[in-house]
């Protein structure tokens, strides 16, 4: 044997040997009390109040901190679990009472509620935490304002275990607003110890180290890779979680996430694309749950800035020309709740969202358009956010095709995610766009407030109607049990039907794939992982 042959054979042997360990790959077997969850985005802070914290980070506020109240659970038609907006339940507060004029709510904090370091949860902590949400600004301040909490003076620590909120006006939104992720209760003593003159709210400290009382503590956080929760066995906010540890793993590629969940190397792949949901559901190997997202709609917005859209008949013509069924099949892959084809042109119920009385009827659309000065057709660009291109692009293409048949020439305008908020919502200058606002508080007036009132962020249509404005002002804080509430809501929905500045396409669902061994998956309005109910059987 000469040197060359030796080298060649040595190479072959080495290559073969390197494959051997491959052949016996231990399928990762987690102990029975560890849940592995895959998410597609990245958590960038453990502090929800901090400016710059992104939405996926809200799950930390949910799992690791407590609020005064939480929401109960209900079972949906398909057997899956969801939060129940109408059932406000105790979390840190064991009971609460309204004053006779309903302008203040007094909470009694649970006697045995303690933070992780053993110190008791006091009303002072609640006050400090709420003041912090207002002081740091940004989204938390806006969300607190939705419940009428705008002034630090409204938060009163009556004694160590009694906390009172004074409201400027009674509102049905105030109590539920205390159950949103933003209204967390932080261990103010531990945080104040780490505050500095330049950073009085301990933003630097709480950004990386939570100080709470929640069901889970953060065992470790490898930014950009994973977050590991470990159970707090002294939790009093609710029933103890079934999982001892929960590993949140960040995997950007949805194809990789799909491979992992199908092979059983993870228990839950949270928020998967509709296409994967449809295919995995047919496969039957993993459980797929699609929960309708409350108070949320995928819509096509018509901007009053654009001359043809100022005419109600033109808007209605567009509403009759949208290819609803095709869009639902091709963009939503059949997963969602249809929002077209309402039986009656009159709003009969206060359910929201509800199907609008439009369907695909090109003849009707053309007839309506012919009654306007624009019967010759016109050109309009249809804009959508590239960040949601998975549903927006097929939708836009189908709308373009269909509107072309009644003489409206649509061009597509793709807007990168970084600019979308600015041009669509802040400047409101896009004439025709696809939008997907969903409100956290589940009442129709809340949706109308954000989407149908001039100047409010999600009103990309620049819609301004004095009747609707008055109705929203009256109903936003009115209790649902008030006798005039239902009639006013129906009137509001009727206006939405007739004026149609926003054409609903469908109500989206949040799809997740999970191992059949995972129980307790529950849908929440904040659309993030709430691991407190998860259990492996």
């Amino acid at each position, binding site marked *: 044997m000469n040197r060359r042959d030796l080298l060649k054979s040595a190479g072959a042997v080495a290559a073969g040997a390197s494959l051997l360990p*491959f052949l016996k790959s231990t399928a990762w077997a987690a102990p029975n009390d560890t849940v592995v969850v895959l998410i597609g985005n990245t958590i*960038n802070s453990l502090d929800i109040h901090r400016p710059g914290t992104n939405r996926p980070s809200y799950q930390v506020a949910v799992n690791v901190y407590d609020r005064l109240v939480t929401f109960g659970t209900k079972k949906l038609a398909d057997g899956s679990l969801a939060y129940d907006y109408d059932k406000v339940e105790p979390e840190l507060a064991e009971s609460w009472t309204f004053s006779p004029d309903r302008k203040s709510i007094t909470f009694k904090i649970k006697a045995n509620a303690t933070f992780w370091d053993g110190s008791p949860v006091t009303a002072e902590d609640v006050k400090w935490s709420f003041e912090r949400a207002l002081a740091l600004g940004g989204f938390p301040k806006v969300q607190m304002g939705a419940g009428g909490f705008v002034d630090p003076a409204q938060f009163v620590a009556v004694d160590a275990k009694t906390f009172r909120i004074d409201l400027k006006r009674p509102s049905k939104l105030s109590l539920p607003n205390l159950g949103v992720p933003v209204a967390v209760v932080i261990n103010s003593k531990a945080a104040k110890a780490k505050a500095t003159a330049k950073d009085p709210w301990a933003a630097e400290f709480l950004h990386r180290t939570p100080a709470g009382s929640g069901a889970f503590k953060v065992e470790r956080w490898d930014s950009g890779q994973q977050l590991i929760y470990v159970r707090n066995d002294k939790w009093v906010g609710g029933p103890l979680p079934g999982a001892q540890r929960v590993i949140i793993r960040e995997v950007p590629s949805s194809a990789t996430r799909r*491979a992992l969940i199908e092979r059983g190397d993870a228990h839950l792949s949270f928020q998967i694309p509709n296409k994967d949901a449809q295919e995995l559901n047919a496969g039957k190997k993993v459980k797929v749950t699609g929960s309708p997202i409350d108070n949320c709609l995928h819509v096509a917005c018509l901007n009053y800035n654009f001359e043809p859209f100022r005419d109600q008949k033109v808007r209605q013509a567009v509403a009759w020309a949208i290819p609803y069924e095709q869009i639902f099949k091709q963009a939503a892959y059949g997963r969602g709740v249809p929002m077209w084809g309402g039986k009656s042109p009159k709003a009969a119920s206060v359910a929201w969202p509800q199907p609008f009385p439009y369907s695909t009827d090109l003849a009707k659309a053309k007839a309506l358009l012919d009654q306007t000065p624009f019967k010759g057709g016109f050109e309009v660009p249809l804009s959508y956010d590239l960040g949601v291109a998975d549903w927006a692009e097929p939708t836009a293409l189908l709308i373009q095709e269909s509107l072309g048949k009644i003489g409206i020439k649509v061009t597509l305008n793709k807007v990168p995610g970084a600019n979308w908020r600015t041009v669509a919502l802040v400047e409101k200058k896009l004439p025709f766009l696809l939008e997907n606002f969903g409100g956290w508080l589940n009442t129709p007036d809340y949706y109308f407030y954000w989407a149908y009132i001039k100047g409010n962020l999600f009103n990309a249509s620049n819609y301004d109607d004095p009747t609707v404005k008055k109705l929203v002002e009256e109903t936003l804080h009115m209790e649902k049990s008030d006798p005039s509430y239902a009639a006013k809501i129906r009137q509001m929905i009727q206006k939405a039907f007739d004026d149609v500045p926003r054409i609903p396409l469908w109500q989206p669902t949040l799809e997740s794939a999970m191992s059949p061994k995972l129980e307790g998956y529950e849908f929440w309005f904040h659309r993030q992982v709430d691991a407190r109910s998860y259990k492996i059987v």
Partner: protein
Amino acid sequence: MSGLATILSRMLQAIPTLFGIVVVTFLLTRALPGDPAAYFAGASATPESIAEIRAKLGLDQSLPVQFWRYLGSLGQGDLGQSISTGQPVSTELLRRLPASLELTLFALLMSVTVAVPLGVLAAVRQDSWVDQLCRFIVTAGVSLPTFFTGLLLVYIFYFILGWAPAPLGRLDMLHVAPPPVTGFLVLDGLIAGDLKVTWAAFKQLLLPGITLALFTLAPLARMTRAAMLQALASEYLRTARAAGLSPGRVLFVYAFRNALLPVITTLGMVFSFTLGANVLVEKVFAWPGIGSYAIEALVVSDYAAVQGFVLSMAVLFVVLNLVIDTLYTLIDPRVTIDG
């Protein structure tokens, strides 16, 4: 000139280039459409809250003021705060660069081991089946996009065969990373003497490494083949054969050594390219590398992060060029480090 003096002079020559890069990146990131303040003010933001965020991020100052501030903090080694991840940019880069370096170096090592012998063999046995095989591998490797190859390998070796471990990043959840010395998990595991972790890290490295190696195979194999062909046709080789030297000695000592120069140049270019551009491989295998960090920062207009990334890549490129030029002098005594 002594070695150290040459190195220093090369570094000094690079400073005007680096300054130019800093200016260009600064202007480019701010010229991009997209308002980081609007993005980070988050859902339900009002114009007031957006203005608040903008003031907090320091973006309401004029451009020259912002640039001056940036230069000032650069001088102190502070690359700024990354708003997308909430960590200082330098911490993020220091954490992610070793991840990308480990992947790239491993992939290059694998592709060199295959590409160079393949190229040499293809040149020596021109137009034989080895040459055709070389052409085929090269074309396939360069025309298949890396995310496609990556997903295909995941599908075959993980999903169907179950041979490869779950593509969940650098290290399996069961293992704790060894104390960081070099930042390369495989080396750190060896240094710490923890063979289980070393093996686990190596297994995770294999699939993304092979994906990247298939892609970098093409330029290296072609370059080796072309350079070898040129060397084999040269005069001095004819003389060596005529002088009666053994074929092995002719091939390795005379032809190969002369063909090495263009191969090293290609290697340097491929390295700097893949370091930043292996984003797609990082996405598929959830690898916490520098490419995906930069892309995400760009999408949310995270200025400090993008500028930090470009600057560190530029510095790395300067150092790399210096290393390659030094290697030249070792291989070919006729080449001096200055040209």
